[in-house]
């Protein structure tokens, strides 16, 4: 069932129930209002007649004055008026006498003969008409003299009530119809944005991420459209990054391979005659192979991180030794690039519980980046300080810096800023994940043209 049907359906249900309750209440009220009023009119007429009789006419014999009494009793009433004797015999009837039948079968007459007010609603046996009868005892000095009885047909009352009910029900149906139409129109405003969303989502699922959902209103659906569009944008960008990555990786892999192949060919054709050439060539082949290995390792690593398969082997690590060793290891490269590499670690720094190999990977990555983006005569400094709740390791360079529009993205996988074609764009992303897994944070501060500061915070 579509949303529109469900919406309209629930509108309808609510309205139908409301209207039905109101109708029942109204019809019930109207009916009881009419019946009650008819009854009340008869009762007050009967009471008035009976009390007047009791006050002024009770001295005389009832039978002798029935004709005159009937005239008075019926003067202000359209109802049928009957005067019944003490024994239950009909003495006078305003609709004309039909013999003098016994009236004792009627419950109201029975009650009135016992001195109570009798009210009876039922079917007149002879005509099968629905009637309402009110009987009042006529009291004389020596007790009950007879009964005065007012009878009205309820046919007209019933007809009137039925007519009003018909009108009410018709109005109710019209109301429900109007609400249904309005409901359909209103639900369109919701369903149309939903179907647009659906349309856009289907296009995206088919791989067309240039599709965009239209935002109609600033409501939940509007937010959903925004989210969907943002998702599509991100997927598009990731897609572009991935393509970029593949081409750059192929390029990166190809460069060392070409160089290795070239040297291999050269050395082969030279057949070891030129000793220096041989040594140079082999050294270059070695470094290029290292580069390849590192890149493949990074890629392997990364897919592992992505799948969450990496486990940390934490050991207690003395940071000052650790950082100095890394400094020594990278010193020749820095010297070759004519960059000063400084390691400034206080001996009092507490030891940390970390996976040594992983932290080394992070440090090499950061220092490698720093060296990569720093030109001649620059400097790279490595500090470690104890701070509240942990230690802080900083790698600071005086290099190119990162543009502010890039700095938010450099942690993304495959992202490379500065139009740089070197590297995989995975280094910072992996480093960030490693530090996060240690419960720490990795942040970058950078000013373009001035330098970059990578700050690792590790808890102890």
């Amino acid at each position, binding site marked *: 069932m579509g949303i529109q049907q469900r919406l309209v359906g629930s509108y309808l249900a609510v309205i139908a129930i409301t209207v039905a309750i109101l109708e029942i209440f109204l019809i019930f009220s109207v009916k009881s209002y009419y019946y009650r009023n008819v009854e009340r009119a008869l009762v007050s007429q009967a009471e008035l007649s009976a009390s007047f009789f009791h006050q002024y*006419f009770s001295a005389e014999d009832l039978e002798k004055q029935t004709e005159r009494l009937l005239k008075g009793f019926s003067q202000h009433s359209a109802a049928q008026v009957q005067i019944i004797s003490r024994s239950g015999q009909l003495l006078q009837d305003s609709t004309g006498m039909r013999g003098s039948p016994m009236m004792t079968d009627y419950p109201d007459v029975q009650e009135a003969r016992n001195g109570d007010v009798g009210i009876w609603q039922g079917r007149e046996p002879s005509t099968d008409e629905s009637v309402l009868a009110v009987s009042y005892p006529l009291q004389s000095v020596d007790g009950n003299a007879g009964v005065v009885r007012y009878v009205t047909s309820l046919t007209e009352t019933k007809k009137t009530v039925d007519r009003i009910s018909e009108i009410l029900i018709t109005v109710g149906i019209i109301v429900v119809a109007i609400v249904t139409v309005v409901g359909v129109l209103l639900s369109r405003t919701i369903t149309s944005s939903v179907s647009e969303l659906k349309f856009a989502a289907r296009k995206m699922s088919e791989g067309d991420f240039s599709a965009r959902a239209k935002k109609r209103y600033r409501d939940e659906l509007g937010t959903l459209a925004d989210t969907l569009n943002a998702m599509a944008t991100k997927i598009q960008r990731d897609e572009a990054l991935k393509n970029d990555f593949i081409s750059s990786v192929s390029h990166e892999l190809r460069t060392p391979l070409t160089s290795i192949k070239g040297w291999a060919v050269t050395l082969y054709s030279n057949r070891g005659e030129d000793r220096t050439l041989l040594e140079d060539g082999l050294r270059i082949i070695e470094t290029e192979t290292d580069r390849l290995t590192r890149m493949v390792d990074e890629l392997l690593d990364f897919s592992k991180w992505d799948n969450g398969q990496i486990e940390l082997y934490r050991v207690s690590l003395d940071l000052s030794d650790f950082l100095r060793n890394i400094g020594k290891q990278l010193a020749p490269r820095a010297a070759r690039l004519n960059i000063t590499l400084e390691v400034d670690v206080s001996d009092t720094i507490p030891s940390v519980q970390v996976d040594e190999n992983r932290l080394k990977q992070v440090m090499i990555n950061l220092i490698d980046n720093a060296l990569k983006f720093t030109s001649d005569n620059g400097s790279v400094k490595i500090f470690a300080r104890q701070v509240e709740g942990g230690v802080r390791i900083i790698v600071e360079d005086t290099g190119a810096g990162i543009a502010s529009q890039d700095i938010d993205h450099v942690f993304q996988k495959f992202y490379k800023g500065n139009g740089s074609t070197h590297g995989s764009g995975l280094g910072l992303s992996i480093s960030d994940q490693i530090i996060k897994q240690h419960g720490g944070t990795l942040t970058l501060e950078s000013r373009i043209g001035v330098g970059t500061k990578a700050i690792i915070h590790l808890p102890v």
Partner: protein
Amino acid sequence: MRTISKLARAGFLVAALLYFSGCRMPVTPNELINPPTSELSLPENKWDEIQKLLPKGAQLVPQTLGQGNGIAFGDLDGDGIDEALIVYKENPLHGKTLKAALLKQKSAQWQIVWDTQGFGYGLDYSKIADVNRDGLPEVVLSWSLGNAGTGMDVYVWRNDTLMLQSKEEYRASPDKATVVGGIS
């Protein structure tokens, strides 16, 4: 939502039942018909004062014989100041009961000193007059049940209040009523 509507329906029915089983029925349109308040031309604007004494919404009942408007004056206790006999219908919203009241002027203030209930469809006539020719005035209230006849109550002034002296029916012809009633 279903249960709520069921509850609401039950509530409605209960409320309706309570409402209609109680005696607080709304009045019928018929009973709402009554004349606008009339400025009766009473000397010294007594009506304003008198009306304040009657229950709210009461209306004078004009007599069907002669031209009385439901107020009769006469000196009952012989102090030289006229008493007023007023026949009125109580507020139609509370049942149109006929009532009669006697008002006495005490230090220029009207006060209800006596009242009684009326009978029948209306008032034939009311008056303060000596109907039994004993030299003292009586209060006569003649209630009508249309063609069935009339009931006449005669009250005498005794011990600072009115006592019922006789209560009888009579079938009056208009001329006789005129003679007895002696329209004032």
